């Protein structure tokens, strides 16, 4: 049974001006134990909203339109905020946020913030016990427990802060970890050690599966088992890493890979934003394919007919004309 299941998820925002923005449309995927799914897409494609949805944090102005999210078979939609806070967040689904090294409260020691997480999810347990547990955990994940736990964020390097955040997020052994750009703005050496740490945790079973979000496709190649490409609130392609990277079928994916592969030989990785045009405005209802205005292979029919997911060569593709 998959650990994590997202079934035809649709989420929308209600803005102050009365607009409805369909930020996530028809997203489906599942995660097996030990699996890493990478999600790539340009800014504004709906990644953040999807993340909130995956964590069960669907609170106004974000609303569920339809669909379900299940962790270990149990649905996490339509539960009260208190329920989500206590039972889902950090316990079942944990987040390692973007810019994690700024996510620590500057006036609180690491061990205190970590203790807060435990205290707010479990009842009982003396301070001593909790601190002992933290020390044990941090040592296990390869950090100098005493030095790090008793420090304030300002006393730690960016890399150490990032790893502290990873340690805190995974304290309660969640089943799914969502890592949102965990290595951006870090230097290359630190990036490597952070990735190494994340995978050690995965292999040790601290957490069971991961969603890795980034727009650095070369990174995904090393990290993900499967990759999903997101555009304008939809998954446009989803398949095994090798296939997505070396044999993309969706025009958008192809454009992204084209931008990447051309940079690869000996050059620094480029962000795949060299596609002309901009994503559609999701407040207006869109007929036909969302990528049509920018698609290099666009046909007349694309603008009229909504594209559904098809299976093409062992991957899911949202394009009637991909082959």
């Amino acid at each position: 049974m998959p650990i994590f299941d997202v079934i035809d998820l649709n989420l929308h925002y209600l803005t102050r001006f009365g607009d409805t923005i369909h930020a996530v449309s028809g997203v489906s995927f599942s995660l097996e134990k030990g699996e890493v799914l990478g999600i790539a897409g340009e800014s504004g494609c709906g990644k953040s909203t999807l993340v909130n949805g995956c964590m069960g944090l669907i609170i106004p102005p974000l609303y569920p339109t339809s669909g379900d999210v299940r962790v270990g078979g149990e649905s996490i939609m339509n539960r009260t905020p208190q329920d989500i806070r206590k039972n889902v967040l950090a316990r079942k689904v944990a987040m390692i946020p973007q810019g994690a090294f700024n996510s620590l409260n500057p006036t609180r020691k690491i061990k205190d913030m970590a203790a807060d997480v435990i205290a707010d999810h479990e009842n009982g347990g003396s301070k001593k016990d909790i601190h002992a547990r933290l020390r044990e955990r941090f040592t296990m994940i390869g950090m100098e427990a005493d030095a790090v736990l008793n420090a304030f964020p300002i006393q730690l390097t960016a890399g150490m802060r990032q790893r502290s955040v990873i340690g805190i997020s995974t304290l309660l052994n969640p089943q799914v970890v969502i890592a949102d750009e965990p290595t951006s703005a870090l230097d290359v050496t630190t990036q490597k050690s952070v990735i190494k740490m994340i995978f050690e945790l995965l292999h040790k079973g601290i957490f069971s599966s991961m969603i890795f979000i980034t727009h650095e496709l070369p990174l995904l190649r090393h990290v993900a088992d499967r990759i999903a490409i997101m555009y304008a609130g939809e998954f446009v392609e989803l398949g095994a890493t090798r296939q997505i990277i070396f044999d993309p079928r969706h025009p958008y994916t192809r454009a992204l890979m084209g931008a990447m592969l051309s940079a690869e030989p000996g050059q620094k990785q480029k962000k795949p934003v060299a596609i002309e045009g901009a994503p559609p405005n999701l407040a207006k209802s869109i007929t036909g394919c969302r990528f049509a205005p920018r698609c290099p292979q666009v046909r007349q029919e694309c603008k009229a007919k909504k594209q559904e997911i098809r299976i093409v060569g062992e991957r899911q593709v949202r394009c009637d004309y991909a082959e």
Partner: protein
Amino acid sequence: MLKRHPTLHYILTRAGWYFLTFLVAVTINFFLPRMGPSNPIDIIMAKVGSGLDTKAAKEKEEAYLKEFGLVELDNGGAILRDESGNPVRTPGWKQFRNYILMSLQGDLGTSFLNYPKKVTEIIKQAVPWTLALQFPTIMLGWIIGNILGALAAYRRGVFDRLFFPMALLLSAIPFFAFGMLLVYQFGIEWRVFPAIGGYAGNLIPSLNWSFIGSALYHYILPFLSIFLILAGGQAIGMRSMCIYELGTDYVKYAKWLGINENRVLFYMFRNAMLPQLTGLALSLGGMIGGALITEMIFSYPGLGMAVLTAIQGNDYPLIQGCTLLITVSVLLANFTVDILIGFFDPRVKAGQKGK
């Protein structure tokens, strides 16, 4: 050793710094008034010496000079004279030295106006009133103002929209202006509260209920005039800080971690308070000054009134004594706030390590 005790290091550094400031303040306090053209003795003489013939006037003048340490004395206590028989004036630096020595012994000189009353005596009577008014007012104003500001930031909505412009208006009114308005409206027009004084005119300060009751009654208006404005100003600042903190990454992360809402609020409040404390340190001097002016308006028998009457009567020793005391209290207060900041904000102490 100091490296391993950042707290101690911090306290000692700040103490040293404030001591330096104190030295500068004492020096300024002494020399500034003396830099002017007018001679205090002449002013006294103008008042006292009229109608006396030259010899008697001269004797009186010399008696005053002697009294105020402006002339050199020999061992027997008689005035030293130069060849023409004029008394030898004490040089400035010697006056300063004598001043310091005397002050350390608790003698701040003799008041001109209330001669022969000692300055310290006059100050001693005034200080309790000032302390009683300023200390609770400033503390309560600061605390409550910050709490209200945090609430406004967190709740937004109607409370905020009503509260914000009101607080903005209040915070911009100068202390004395508000004091005057209150005195006029409530003290004279509507006669709800007494307009002047610390207590009813026919009572003598003593520890009985009728006196205490009267004192409290007279306390209300001056208290309000400082408190409301202070609270308004703090609320505005705190509201901005909290709005900022609510949008920070760590608050978002804490929420993602499923940390209790109340705890998150507490994080935010505590972090937003730090710049407010710093702001407090910066404006303490101004607050105390403003409170003093309020005392003057209400003819409240504290240091404010003492300074006012001293100024009006050119009573230099008293002016100096008061300003010295005011400066010292401001320095002490600032020092306390600095220590508090160091206590609450670990970044300050940790920042020292990096040096």
